C-alpha cells in the first residue's frame, strides 16, 4: 500500500482493518509503513519464470508475517495475495491469506458460502450468509 499511495492512505486502511477485526486483533508487522518490504509478487516477478528467486525474495516477508504470530494475513491486492499465499504454503506457515473485502463482508454478516475460498477452517463456517447456496 505504501508504494503507490503513501503512508496516509495506509493509515486509512489500518482504520478499516481495526474496525473489522477489532483493535486488539490487529498486529502490525515490523518493519511497517514505508519501511516495510515488498512481498515479491510485484513488478512482474510472478510471471517472470524465476520462481526459486521469487520465493527466496519472499522469505523476508514470510519471516515478518510469522513473527507477528497473527492467525491471518490480509493482502492489499491480487498480486500480493498470490505471492503471500504461495509463501505461506512453501515455507510451511500455512497461515490463511485473505483479501480485505472478504473480512469486511464477513464482519457485515453478508459473506456467502462460495465467497470463502481463502478463509481458514476456523472461520469457514462462521456466520454464513445464505448457507443453502453452497
Amino acid at each position: 500500500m505504501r508504494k503507490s499511495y503513501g503512508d496516509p492512505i495506509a493509515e486509512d486502511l489500518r482504520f478499516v482493518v481495526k474496525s473489522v477485526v477489532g483493535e486488539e486483533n490487529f498486529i502490525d508487522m515490523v518493519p511497517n509503513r514505508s519501511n516495510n518490504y515488498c512481498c515479491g509478487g510485484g513488478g512482474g516477478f510472478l510471471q517472470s519464470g524465476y520462481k526459486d528467486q521469487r520465493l527466496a525474495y519472499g522469505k523476508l516477508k514470510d519471516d515478518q508475517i510469522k513473527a507477528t504470530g497473527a492467525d491471518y494475513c490480509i493482502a492489499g491486492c491480487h498480486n500480493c495475495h498470490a505471492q503471500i499465499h504461495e509463501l505461506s504454503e512453501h515455507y510451511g506457515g500455512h497461515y490463511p491469506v485473505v483479501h480485505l473485502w472478504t473480512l469486511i463482508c464477513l464482519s457485515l454478516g453478508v459473506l456467502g458460502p462460495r465467497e470463502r475460498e481463502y478463509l481458514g477452517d476456523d472461520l469457514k463456517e462462521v456466520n454464513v450468509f445464505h448457507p443453502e447456496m453452497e
Partner: protein
Amino acid sequence: MAEEAIKLGGKKKSIFMDKVKELLPEGGNLNLCLTCGACSSGCPATGLEGMDPRKFLRMAALGMDEEIMSTPWVWMCTMCQRCIYVCPMKIDIPQLVYNARASWPRDQRPKGILGSCDMALRNESRSAMGTSPEDFSFVVGDVLEEYREAQPEFAEMEAPIDKEGAEFFLNQNSREPVTEPDEMVPLWKILHLAGVNWTYGSKGWGGENYCMFLADNDAWETLARTTINQADALGCKTYLNTE
C-alpha cells in the same frame, strides 16, 4: 557480497547511466551515491544473482554497461522503491532497473511477462489473460443475476459496465472473472451497501499492466490510455485501481 574484486576494463564508458539520467528529473540523483548501503541492507533482492541495489548502481556508474544490461537481476527487483525511501540522497535506482529491462531485446525478456503483455494488446479489455469484453460482460452479468436471486437482500445490487456518469471507474484483476468469479462479489456488496455509484468499463477493465513490467513503453501507454480514455468517456470522476 562478491567473492572476487570486479576488474574494470580500461576507460570509463558509462553511456547507459548517462542516458537514464537524461530521462529523469534531477537525473534521478544517480550520481549522488554515498555508497552507504542503506538501499541494499533492506532490499529483499539483495544477494540474488550476486547482485544488490548499491552494486547495481556502482557498476552503472563505473560504466559496466554490458553487465548492467545483461543481468537477469533486473527481473527480480520488483521496483518497490524502498531503496529510494531509505536513501539519504533519494537516488532512483528502480528507474535504472526499469531502463535496463527496456534495453533487453523484446523477444528475450521473460516469456511470462511478455506473453501477458501481448495478451493485453489483443483486445480492448487490456486483460493479461486475453479475455474479450464480451466474455467479461457475460461473466459479470451471469454472476450478478445468480447472486441477486440467491441472496434477495442484494436483489438491487448492481455491477454496471459502461454506466455513464458514474462517480467511480473500477478496474478488475482479470484472474477473478476468469478463474474465481465468486471473488468479485464481496467488493460489489461493499460498494452496494455504501451506496457507491460505480462502473466497470467494457474497454480497459483489466487491472493489471504487464506491459509496464515488460518495460515496453508504447504498449504500457496503450494499456493505460485505453482505460483512462474509457473512464473519461463515461464521465467518471474517480479511478479506482484494485491492483
